[in-house]
């Protein structure tokens, strides 16, 4: 019988009766469904990891859209991320913190170059996790995006650990330069043990328009001190504003990973850390004897 490509690929897309293959994204979508009879309860929840982990390690959480998920890839990435964290100390930081990053640079005689800046954005899941630092150098605003798990990053130092009122600070591009200027020889400030991360309640005044984005339309940004704008510009706001969004539970559900799954993921992190701590303790004992 001759090979008929049309018939072959048709059967691949639409399986014949009795040979149905459920697509992986459908399985993914219904995995956490309460109707799923094979779901095993609470054994996992009993050994839950600290709830702070989702803020300290946000890149360990996968993409909330189930169509973009691949559990095997996620697990492998998490393993690689933890292995990288054994070599390099990736500290806890937030948007609004001041960081100093040392990067391997072959063109410099010392083979290293350092950049200091305020973190304006944090993005990406798994090994793609990245953060953007902004600084004003010699009258010129500079922003650099770094991949957290890139092996050429040699050191990430938190010079000031703090949060801001917003999760992204792109409005600093339209603010006076003083709000983005950080000296390169800034000394690191340490918080006392057990202290919560302080929130800087500063409201940034913006330069007169034109701006890079229409900041008056971003009602979610709390850290902006908007100037007086012409009435024509403010008129459109009433059409764009969505006051019901903060009550949208389904949107919140779709945006976040469920608590049970978060606990599973961070249990791996906890196990890894305990293993590492144990090893380091044993090595310390060996060195002492």
């Amino acid at each position, binding site marked *: 019988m001759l090979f008929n490509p049309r018939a072959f690929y048709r059967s691949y897309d639409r399986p014949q009766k009795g040979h149905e293959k459920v697509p992986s994204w459908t399985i993914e979508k219904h995995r956490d469904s309460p109707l799923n009879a094979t779901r095993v309860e609470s054994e996992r929840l009993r050994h839950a990891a600290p709830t702070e982990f989702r803020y300290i390690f946000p890149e360990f959480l996968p993409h909330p859209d189930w169509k973009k998920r691949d559990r095997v890839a996620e697990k492998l990435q998490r393993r690689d991320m933890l292995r990288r964290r054994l070599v390099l100390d990736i500290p806890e930081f937030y948007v609004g913190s001041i960081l100093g990053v040392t990067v391997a640079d072959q063109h410099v005689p010392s083979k290293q*170059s350092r950049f200091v800046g305020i973190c304006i954005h944090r993005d990406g899941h798994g090994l793609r996790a990245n953060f953007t630092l902004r600084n004003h150098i*010699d009258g010129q605003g*500079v922003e650099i995006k770094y*991949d957290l798990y890139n092996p050429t990053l040699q050191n990430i130092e938190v010079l000031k650990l703090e949060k801001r009122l917003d999760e992204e600070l792109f409005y600093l591009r339209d603010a006076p330069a003083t709000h983005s200027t950080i000296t390169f020889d800034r000394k690191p400030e340490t918080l006392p043990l057990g202290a919560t991360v302080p929130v800087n309640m500063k409201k940034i005044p913006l330069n007169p328009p034109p701006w890079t984005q229409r900041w008056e339309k971003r009602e979610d940004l709390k850290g902006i001190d908007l100037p007086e704008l012409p009435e024509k510009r403010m008129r459109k706001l009433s*059409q*764009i504003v969505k006051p019901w969004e903060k009550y949208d539970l389904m949107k919140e559900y779709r945006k976040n990973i469920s608590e049970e799954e978060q606990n599973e993921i961070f249990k791996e992190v906890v196990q890894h850390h305990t293993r590492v701590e144990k090893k380091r303790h044993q090595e310390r004992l060996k060195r002492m004897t």
Partner: protein
Amino acid sequence: MSAVARYFHSRAVTLGLCTRNNTRHFSTSLPLCELRHMSRVNVVDNSDLGKNAKTSGKPARIVHVYNKQGVARIGDKVLLALEKQKVKGIIVGCKQKQKHMIPKFDSNNVVLIDEEDTPMGSRINVPIPSVLRKKEELAKILAISSRFV
């Protein structure tokens, strides 16, 4: 920017779709900040031509990009029109979104060069991306830069 350009430039068109009846929706791209023909650039060295261009109120404009894409990136050679002259320059900083570890600047910076690729100024006071050090043809420009980022 003209009224038409301003209208297309804002991302708010996609954010806030018209609630009126019988409206036509069209998609707008995010601002790409590409450097093309007629883009205005900021001359960053201390050459006289560059200073005059800044003070005259008629900024330097790109008139030709010396590559096949027509879009100038960091390190590309461009032909500029300023002070009623045609001068060559090298792009030394972009407002465009950059790849990992390449700096993005708040303005599109350019350094003026002559026909022998020698810079027309004697100093660059603005930070220069460290990636340019890979290019040997820019050695003369790197020699006059004060700071690398």
